[in-house]
């Protein structure tokens, strides 16, 4: 073994650049597979986390909700969107499309405080004949800001159209969403039956009516925080079929590719390792002539193989982890949140792949050498001489000729193809990750006879997006189509509670995440 180590050391010293080249070649190939495997692990961990969030996002109606308890949890509404109100119907306005009818609903001081709606003038309505109107709706109704005037409106309710006259007793600030207006608009554009709106007109006389809260929370137990009687019947379900299902497909495809390319990589690593053995074959033959035993020759090859494997493992692992961080970093830079997880199985697979392919190359080469006389080492194996067949224009014959001429390039070609395959595998997995993840489909049920809805939207697990979902400073979202100038940059809330609607939120880039990864629900844990 001493002789083998010494001779291998001498060989490496003399052919350092060549050895580095072989190690680098193997490390790049194997590191690519390791990166793909680790990337898959990270993708699975990220999906799992998102799935947990999804499954933990319940929404429920809490009847007879305890407003004091809602208030205790008011900080939820500061970071997420909320709506505390009841919806009675919509109010028709002349020359205005039905889609833009303002909603009429209920409101009391507690609800106003919770929702952060200021009273600009007058007071809140105290009975069924009185009305308070938000400033922008007043303008929309073409009414003067005169308290005490009679306002006649057509209310569209599920029971039909009713014309009612109210006394204007108060003017409130705009009851706006904590989502940017452009987001609300977007909800309306994306094939949703209704854009999301909050009532701009409030009536009194709601004593005795059930107070209710619509809550989207991380677990069912969370609803107890609001008192009353949680009812999961009317739950707000967050589904993310695109995120989960498509990712499963992408993951399966990535796994298949990894397995497929593993075969190619084994061939590439095998070839690289075998080339390095062939380099020494002739001199091993010489040493066999002057007295090296087969065992010593095998030891020599083993030393080289183990050294090659050890260096390739170390460098390959480093490269693999480096590739992983580069890919995750790039994804994060593109706006995808990503968890980094290391899986021992991936490293084990990688180690088996590298060691297996290298040792297989050395072992099979040792076997080949056994069949040769030592002085023939390094020479092409003797092939049985065949009589040259007459020229044939058949495809197999022509293909054979072409292959024979291309034979000398086969190793380079194999390495090149392998590299391309690894790149395709890694970047294939990577590209799969670029599939929009945060598409949610939501359903929202309508509840009658409710005084209050508390809608807390969130459920994301990524803390750094905690403050997303609303704009903190004016001009945060300049130039966004549909952004109401007065609402731009103003803290708002989700306009929930209303007639039946389904919302489909595709979003894009930061916007999609900003809305869906609000940390509101997380606060509730």
């Amino acid at each position, binding site marked *: 073994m*001493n002789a083998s180590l010494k001779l291998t050391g001498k060989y490496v010293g*003399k052919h350092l650049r060549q050895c580095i080249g072989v190690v680098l070649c193997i490390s790049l190939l194997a590191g690519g597979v390791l990166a793909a495997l680790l990337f898959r692990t990270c993708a699975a961990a990220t999906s799992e986390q998102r799935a947990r969030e999804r499954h933990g996002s319940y929404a429920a109606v809490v009847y007879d909700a305890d407003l004091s308890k809602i208030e205790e949890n008011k900080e939820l509404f500061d970071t997420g969107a909320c709506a505390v109100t009841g919806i009675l119907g919509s109010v028709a306005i002349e020359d205005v499309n039905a889609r833009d009818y303002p909603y009429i609903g209920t409101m009391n001081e507690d609800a106003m405080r919770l929702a952060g709606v200021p009273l600009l003038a007058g007071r809140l309505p105290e009975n069924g004949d009185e009305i308070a109107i938000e400033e922008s709706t007043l303008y929309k109704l073409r009414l003067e800001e005169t308290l005490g005037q009679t306002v006649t409106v057509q209310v569209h309710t599920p029971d039909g159209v009713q014309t009612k006259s109210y006394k204007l007793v108060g003017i409130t600030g705009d009851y706006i969403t904590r989502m940017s207006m452009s987001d609300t608009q977007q909800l309306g554009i994306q094939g949703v039956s209704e854009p999301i709106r909050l009532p701009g007109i409030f009536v009194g006389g709601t004593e005795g009516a059930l107070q209710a809260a619509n809550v989207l929370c991380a677990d069912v137990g969370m609803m107890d925080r609001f008192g009353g009687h949680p009812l999961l019947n009317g739950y707000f379900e967050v589904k993310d079929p695109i995120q989960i299902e498509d990712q499963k497909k992408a993951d399966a495809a990535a796994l298949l590719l990894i397995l497929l390319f593993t075969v190619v990589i084994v061939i590439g690593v095998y070839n690289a390792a075998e080339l390095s053995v062939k380099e020494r074959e002739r001199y091993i033959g*010489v*040493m066999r*002539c002057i*007295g*090296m035993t*087969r065992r*010593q020759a095998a030891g020599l090859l083993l030393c080289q193989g183990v050294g090659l494997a050890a260096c390739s493992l170390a460098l390959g692992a480093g490269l693999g982890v480096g590739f992983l961080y580069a890919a995750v970093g790039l994804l994060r830079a593109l706006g995808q949140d990503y968890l980094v997880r290391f899986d021992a199985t991936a490293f084990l697979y990688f180690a088996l792949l590298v060691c297996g392919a290298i040792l297989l190359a050395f072992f099979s080469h040792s076997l080949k050498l056994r069949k040769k006389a030592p002085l023939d080492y390094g020479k092409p194996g003797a092939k049985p001489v065949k009589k040259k067949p007459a020229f044939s224009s058949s495809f197999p014959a022509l293909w054979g000729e072409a292959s024979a001429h291309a034979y000398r390039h086969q190793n380079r070609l194999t390495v090149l193809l392998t590299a391309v395959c690894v790149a395709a595998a890694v970047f294939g997995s990577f590209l799969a990750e670029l599939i929009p993840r945060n598409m949610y489909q939501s359903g929202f049920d309508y509840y009658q006879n409710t005084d209050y809805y508390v809608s807390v939207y969130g459920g994301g697990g990524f803390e750094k997006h905690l403050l997303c979902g609303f704009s903190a400073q004016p001009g945060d979202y300049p130039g966004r189509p549909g952004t109401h100038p007065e609402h731009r940059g103003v803290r708002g809330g989700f306009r929930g509670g209303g007639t039946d609607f389904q919302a489909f939120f595709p979003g894009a880039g930061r916007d999609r995440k900003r809305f869906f990864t609000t940390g509101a629900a997380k606060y509730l844990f």
Partner: protein
Amino acid sequence: MVRVEKLSKTYGSGEVQVEALKPCTFTIGDGEQVAVVGASGSGKSTLLHLLSGLDTPTSGAVFLDGVNLSEKSDEELSLLRRRKIGFIFQSYNLVPELTARENILLPVLLDGKKRAEEFSKAYLDEIVERLELNDRLEHLPGQLSGGQQQRVAIARALINRPQMILCDEPTGNLDSQSAGRVIGLLNDFSAESNITLIVVTHNEAIARQYPRNLTLRDGTVGGDLG
């Protein structure tokens, strides 16, 4: 003593069968110097490989000091080549990453620590001195001339005090002056240490310097001029 009995070697089978060495019998005594002469492809190298146990005969046997090489294991044959046989090749066959000194000591290195301790440094110095390699010992083969490389190969063949030296065209790559010097050195060492010397050559001038010639023609030992 080397005894060859009905030794033959055939490569391939069927239509492509080649009889590289036809059955032959001869004996070479201890310290004897023999030239094996013949044209290319006549079977000279095949004979040399069979004599050293590098190749197995199709029929017949080679006896070295009465021991049948065919009955020896590969391990035993390797040890035999290392300790009793020295090899010199036409293309020197020095290990390129080892210095001249390391190449010379390679058989000792292969023999392990115990043998290395037994090895006499004085003997190395003596060989090196006689082969005029003193100032070339730390050079790599690529930094030596053809003649110097062949002298390193001779030193390597001698280092384990072999019983027999087999030379395959040792002067084939050398100019006439270097060739004469190499042959002279080989003959001197052989004579002084009673080493059996078998030199394969197709150079008749060199062959004539040896007291005994074995002529090979198409695999047949045609004339034993001894």
